[in-house]
């Protein structure tokens, strides 16, 4: 029997909610408003959700169930999966929403297989029609969409597509309702991690060493960065945004960037959430390597540059000067925050 709730897996890192989980909360809010169900957050993180309770309540969350964190030495997250499965079996929700994080993409299908629930992945839109949830998913490499629904009476697990939903804005009208927080960890002992998988080493790499194919934000530079020194500013911008640096063919040929950073027809193919093209005109060969980016921010002095044809935002300006100014401003803001008690 369904408990009439809409669950959302909320992942937190160092006490902050990750963006994908916020998008899932945003989708869940639409869904709960349409179906009249209650929004419940399943909090995954080392820190207690207490500190974020007011914010979660302002988004419409009515209950938070803290399921603990991914245990060290458990690369398959089996302990966390067992806990969530135990909660699910106690009272399954109507819907269970996941943001498209690596953890969710690994957990959700396994949970669906264990509990026999429906599973829909890469969903870009949700709405309730006649009391039934209808989901939209791109198909055939995005040339078509299909409308899906779960079989009647079957609860469903839904994993969203990246950046398909805006970040939620807190309700501004009334005082948020009090939030119930439940620590489930003491009641749901996790099984010991599988001895078949053993972590030998875990290293956090600096942003500049993240492979450009894996980066969510790619900052690419071309001839418009004017010099090797100008191009080096992109490394600092990448550090600021947590992205990786790429380069156009001409920047590689001029020796400003190594060949591994080349993006284009003969280089890496990237599809980040944000692609910042600094001083890149947008030759056809370059566009072949980045045309699947979700959002493109282009900075170029030539207003007729082809890159502006595919840009989400275009700025006609000197890229090296703009990047220098961005770094200057961000340093000023950091210093201001540091000086403010």
């Amino acid at each position, binding site marked *: 029997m369904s408990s009439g709730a809409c669950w959302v897996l909320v992942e937190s890192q160092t006490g902050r909610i990750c963006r994908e989980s916020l998008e899932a909360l945003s989708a869940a809010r639409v869904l709960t408003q349409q179906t009249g169900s209650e929004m419940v957050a399943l909090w995954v993180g080392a820190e207690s959700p207490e500190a974020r309770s007011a914010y979660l309540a302002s988004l419409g969350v009515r209950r938070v169930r803290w399921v603990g964190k991914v245990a060290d030495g458990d690369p398959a997250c089996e302990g966390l999966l067992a806990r969530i499965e135990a909660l699910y079996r106690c009272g399954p929700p109507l819907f269970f929403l996941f943001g498209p994080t690596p953890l969710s993409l690994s957990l959700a299908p396994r949970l669906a297989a264990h509990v026999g629930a429906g*599973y829909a992945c890469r969903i870009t839109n949700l709405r309730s029609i006649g009391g039934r949830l209808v989901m939209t998913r791109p198909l055939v*490499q995005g040339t078509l*969409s299909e*409308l899906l629904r779960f079989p009647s009476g079957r609860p469903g697990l839904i994993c969203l597509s990246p950046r398909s939903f805006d970040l939620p804005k807190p309700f501004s009208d009334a005082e948020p309702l009090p939030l119930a927080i439940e620590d489930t960890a003491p009641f749901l002992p996790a099984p010991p991690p599988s001895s078949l998988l053993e972590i030998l080493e875990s290293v956090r790499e600096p942003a500049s060493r*993240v492979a450009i194919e894996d980066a969510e934000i790619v900052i690419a530079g071309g001839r418009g960065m004017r010099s090797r020194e100008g191009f080096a500013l992109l490394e600092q911008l990448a550090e600021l945004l947590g992205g990786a640096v790429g380069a156009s063919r001409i920047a590689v040929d001029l020796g400003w960037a190594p060949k591994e950073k080349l993006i284009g027809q003969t280089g890496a193919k990237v599809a980040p959430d944000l692609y910042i093209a600094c001083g890149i005109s947008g030759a056809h060969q370059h566009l072949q390597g980045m045309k699947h980016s979700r959002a493109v921010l282009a900075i170029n002095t030539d207003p007729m540059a082809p890159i*502006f044809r595919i840009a989400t935002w275009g700025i006609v300006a000197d890229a090296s000067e703009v990047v220098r100014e961005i770094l200057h401003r961000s340093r000023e803001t950091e210093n201001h925050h540091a000086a403010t008690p």
Partner: protein
Amino acid sequence: MPQPPSEPQATPTILRIVAFLRPVHNPAFSIEPAQVSKFEELPGYRPMPDPLSEIALEGALGLRDSSPEPATVIACSAGGTPCQAALREALACGADEALWIHCSTGEPDAWIVAAHLSAFFRHSRIGLALFGARDLDTGAGAVGPMFSALAGLPFLDGVTGLKWTGGGRLEATRSRGSIRERIRLTLPACVSIHRGPPLRYPTLEGKIRSERTPLQPCAVDPGPVAPSLERERFSPPKPARASAAADYAKVSSLDRIRQAYGMSGSGQKAAGSQVLRLPPDEASRKILQILKEEGFLDPGRAEPRPRPGEKE
């Protein structure tokens, strides 16, 4: 005269590495909504193997070649007739066997495929099962984790490299954002490949063998398995981002026509985009504003800063 029964000989254990291949739509052929479920019937149509499945197959072939013990690579695909093309390519590239599992319940979804695979391999020992991290058509990669759950195998995702370490164990390299891990795997296991070297070229010998090998679908009874999803209908693609629809509405019809016909003038920019001519200081301010509004600034801190009075 009847021969005395011979002593049972110890058969050498052969490691079975299974690479799962998924055929996807070939973008060289345009497709209409009404043709989706039967596009393999289009004249001259040839689907292509999923690129990430190919990377998984190359991983399997590389492991077989470097294995200290005898190993065999089984290319496996589940579904209808498009599976044949993917399996024939796998044979041509060096797979030892091809296994085509027929799914009888119409167009399969991940749950149906996983149920068929686990039913087939229930009585057949697998050393290592390799999947592509996601497929090109839908971006989903649910079969691998579902199969591992049904088959009771440990599942490791996001793998970018695999190598033998001795004692029948593997060392996997995994990248999750900026975190890189080295993980030791004891077989049997199920692995989803995120990145790796591209599939090797087919050999002439492999091509001949591939064409001569008959491919017959194996019927499997997975038990009572109902589809986990119902398809209502197809529709033309929608803007991926919800807010993009609002932006699209702001563009005039004239600009859309100009854009459709590749005309210059005010149609130089994509629908919904903004091209602004700004001095550097204003441009930097505008860019920082965009990055903040879209949640790109302050990585790991996508959540808005606490409001006044809210506990940090």
